[in-house]
C-alpha cells in the first residue's frame, strides 16, 4: 500500500458529496446569473444583462440597504449588549447560571418559531407590545408594527436581536473565563479604574472571542431570511426585504431563475469579503503554530 496517498481513501466520499451538493452548485449559480431562465426550458445565455438590470432595480437597492441596516444594528445592539451582559455575569452574582440560561435560551428556538411568536407580539390589537404600551399609559406609541413601512424593518430585526444576543454573550463569556482573575485584581490594586481595566486588560485579551463574534454577526445578518420570510415576506412595499429574501422571491415565486441567481451572486460576493479575511486569519494562525 502506498502510504502517501492514504488520505484520499478517507477524503474521497465526503469530497464527492461536497462537490456535487456545494462546490458544483456554487459555480453553476455563477453561470446561471448570466442567463435568462424560467426553470423549465433551457437557460438562455444573455451575458451580463441581469447585472445591468439589477443596477436599475429599486427593490434590489432597498434590499441591499436593508441588509446594511440589519448589519449595523446587529453590530451595535447584540454585540454591545452581549459583551455587557457577559461581563456582569462573569462576576460572582447570585443566580448567574440561571440568568445566563434565560438569556441564551431564545437561541435554541427556530427563527421561524421566534418570527411567529414575535409576529403575534406585534399584533396591532391583541399583541403583547401594544397591550403593554396601553397598560402603562403610552397609548400614543401603539401602532401596527409590522404593517407600517416605517417600523416594520426594525420590528423584524428586533426579533432577530432577541435570538442573537444570547449567542454573543456565550461567546464572550467563554472568552472571559480564559482571562486570569489575578490579572484584573493586580490592576485594581495598582489603581486602575473599572474603565481602564476593561479597556486595557479585558478588551485586548478578548480579541479571539471578538473576532469570532464579529464574523458570526456579519454572516448572520447577511444570511437573514427566515425572520423576514415568516414575518413579512419582505413587505409592506418591500420595506423589510433583504437580498436573501429577494433572491428567493425572484427565483421561486416569480420563476426568474437567472435574475435570482444574479442576486445570489451579489450576496455571495459581499459575504465572501468577510469570509476571505476570516480564512486568511485562520491560515496565518495555522502556519504560525
Amino acid at each position, binding site marked *: 500500500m502506498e502510504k502517501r496517498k492514504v*488520505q484520499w481513501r*478517507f477524503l474521497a466520499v*465526503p469530497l464527492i*458529496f*461536497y462537490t*456535487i*451538493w*456545494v*462546490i458544483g*452548485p456554487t459555480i453553476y*449559480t455563477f453561470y446561471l446569473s448570466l442567463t435568462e431562465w424560467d*426553470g423549465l426550458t433551457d437557460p438562455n445565455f444573455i451575458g451580463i444583462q441581469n447585472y445591468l438590470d439589477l443596477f436599475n432595480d429599486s427593490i434590489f437597492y432597498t434590499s441591499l440597504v436593508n441588509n446594511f441596516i440589519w448589519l449595523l444594528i446587529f453590530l451595535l445592539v447584540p454585540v454591545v449588549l452581549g459583551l455587557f451582559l457577559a461581563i456582569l*455575569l462573569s462576576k460572582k*452574582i*447570585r*443566580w448567574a447560571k440561571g440568568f445566563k440560561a*434565560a*438569556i441564551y*435560551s431564545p437561541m*435554541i428556538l*427556530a*427563527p*421561524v*418559531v421566534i418570527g*411567529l*411568536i414575535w409576529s*403575534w*407580539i406585534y*399584533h396591532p*390589537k*391583541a*399583541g*403583547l407590545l401594544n397591550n*403593554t404600551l*396601553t397598560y402603562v399609559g403610552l397609548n400614543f406609541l401603539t401602532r401596527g408594527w409590522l404593517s407600517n413601512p416605517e417600523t416594520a424593518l426594525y420590528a423584524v430585526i428586533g426579533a432577530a436581536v*432577541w435570538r442573537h444576543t444570547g*449567542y454573543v454573550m*456565550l461567546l464572550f*463569556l467563554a*472568552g472571559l*473565563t*480564559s482571562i486570569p482573575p489575578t490579572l484584573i485584581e493586580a490592576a485594581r490594586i495598582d489603581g486602575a479604574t473599572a474603565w481602564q481595566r476593561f479597556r486595557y486588560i479585558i478588551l485586548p485579551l478578548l480579541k*479571539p*472571542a471578538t473576532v469570532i463574534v464579529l464574523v458570526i454577526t456579519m454572516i448572520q445578518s447577511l*444570511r437573514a*431570511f427566515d425572520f423576514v*420570510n*415568516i414575518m413579512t415576506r419582505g413587505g409592506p412595499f418591500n420595506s423589510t426585504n433583504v*437580498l436573501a429574501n429577494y*433572491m*428567493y422571491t425572484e*427565483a421561486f415565486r416569480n420563476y426568474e431563475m437567472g435574475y435570482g441567481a444574479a442576486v*445570489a*451572486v451579489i*450576496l*455571495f460576493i459581499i459575504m465572501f469579503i*468577510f469570509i476571505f479575511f476570516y*480564512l486568511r486569519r*485562520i*491560515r496565518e494562525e495555522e502556519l504560525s503554530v
Partner: protein
Amino acid sequence: MNYLKKRKYLNAFIFLALLLFVIAWLLPVFGAFLTAFRSMDEIMAKGFWTIPEKLSLNNFKVAWTEGNLNTYLLNSFIITIPALIGTLFLSSLAAYALAQYDFKLNMALYLMFVGGMLIPFQILLIPVFKLSNFLGIYNSYWGLIMIHMVFQIGFCTFFLRNFMMTIPEELSEAARMDGCSEFKIFYRIYLPLSKPALAALGTLEFTWIFNDYIWALVLIRDNKFKPVTAGLASLKGNFITSWGVLVAGSLLATIPTIIVFIFLQKYFIRGLTMGTGK
C-alpha cells in the same frame, strides 16, 4: 474593608438589575404561553393584560390535529436523524484525513470546508433544487436529508479536525508500529477519543438541522413531507387569524429542541464556544 463592602452593594445592585432584565427578556415566552392557553376571542375582547377567564388546551389540540403538527414533527425527526448521523460520519472521515496526514492540498481543503460553512444558502438554492429534481428526490425526505448531510460537512469537518489535532500523534505512531491499519487507527483510536467533540457537535447540529426553514421551503412541496418549520409557515397561511393556535403550534414545535437542550446543554455550549477561549 471599605472596598469589599462597596463591592457587596454593587453586586446586589447588579443582581437586581439583571433580575429585571431577565424578566423583561422572557416576557415574550411568558406571553406566548398565556396566549396559547386562552381563546383568541377573549384576548381580542378584553385585551392581553387581563386575568384569564378560562385556560384550555384547545389551541394545542387544534394545532396538533387540524394543523397537522403531529405529521410535521415526525417528519422533522425523519429528516434530522439520518442527516445528523450521515454528516457526523462523513466529516469525521474528512477531519481525520486533514488532522493526521501532511499533504499538499491539506490547507486548501481545510479552508474550503471552513469557507463552505459560511456561504449564503442562496448561492446553492437553484442548482440544488434542479439537482434534486434530476435525482428524483425533490419533494421527498431524501432531498432534505442529502443537502443537510452534505452542507453540514463544512462546519463538522472544521470542528472535528481542530479537535483531532489535539490528540497526541504518538498514539497513532505507536499503533502503526504495531501494524495497525490506517482505517483501524481512525476507527479504534481517533473516533473513540473524539466522543466529547462528537457529542457537542451532534447537539449543535441537531438543533440547526431541525430548525432549518429555507431548504424545506425550496425542496418540499407537499404538506405530508414538510418538517415542522415549513409546516408552521403553512399553519400561518391556514390559521392567519387564530393567533392562539399559531402560538400553540410554535410552542409544540420547540419541544424537541428544548428537550435536547435541557439534557445536553453542556455539550451545546461547549460546541458553540469552541475556539474562543484560547
